[in-house]
């Protein structure tokens, strides 16, 4: 069982609150989403494991059980081509849950006309694999968002 932590501080809005159908319809997997606090911050690893994909605006960490968790920072942020994101780790790195992975400023993303909402997705998780999924409320970075059996 994997405890999946919030990569950012903010207000939980659930995947349905993400203004993008890929996440809102859970096409790549179930999970939740956090509307981040509008202040410069460091998005952290949601689980302990290996960073198997690292883009400036998104990353995937796979834990020892093979659970891959995608963190996607903002919507349509691929179009920023890395501007406003600072990589604090490298693809292939082993990280502990809570380690910083990407530095960013949600306020900057928003002032550029994009949503900074951060989706946290349990890749390829089956129905019922997630329990205690937060859908609302305030969280700090490192607070538990859901557990994955």
């Amino acid at each position, binding site marked *: 069982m994997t405890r999946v932590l919030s990569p950012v501080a903010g207000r939980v809005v659930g995947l349905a609150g993400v203004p993008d*159908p*890929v*996440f809102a*319809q859970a*096409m*790549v997997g179930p999970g939740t989403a956090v509307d981040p606090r509008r202040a410069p911050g460091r998005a952290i690893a949601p689980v302990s494991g290996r960073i*198997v*994909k690292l*883009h400036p*605006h*998104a990353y*995937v960490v796979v834990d020892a059980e093979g659970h*891959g968790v*995608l963190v*996607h920072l903002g919507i349509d942020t*691929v179009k920023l081509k890395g501007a406003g994101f600072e990589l604090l780790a490298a693809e292939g790195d082993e990280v502990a849950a809570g380690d910083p992975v990407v530095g960013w400023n949600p306020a900057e993303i928003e002032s550029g006309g994009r949503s900074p909402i951060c989706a946290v997705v349990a*890749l*390829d998780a089956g129905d019922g694999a997630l329990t205690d999924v937060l859908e609302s409320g305030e969280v700090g970075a490192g607070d538990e968002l859901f557990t994955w059996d």
Partner: protein
Amino acid sequence: MDKAEAIVAALGGADNIVEIEPCATRLRTEVSDAGKVDEAALKRAGAFGVMRSGTVVQVVVGPEADTIASDIEDILD
């Protein structure tokens, strides 16, 4: 036929693809003729979903998008 080849075929073939760009979860593609895109074939090729807006077609393939995109670029070259 591997996944990249199947996706190229479902997008109407190499000649129909104007641009392809990977995102964290999807391939963003622009095609010449949207009528040649076969959504059912894209799903058979492993796409979780397809979003279309005119000649822009987004193929949701998950985090392997960058790997698949470079395979597709090899086919297009």
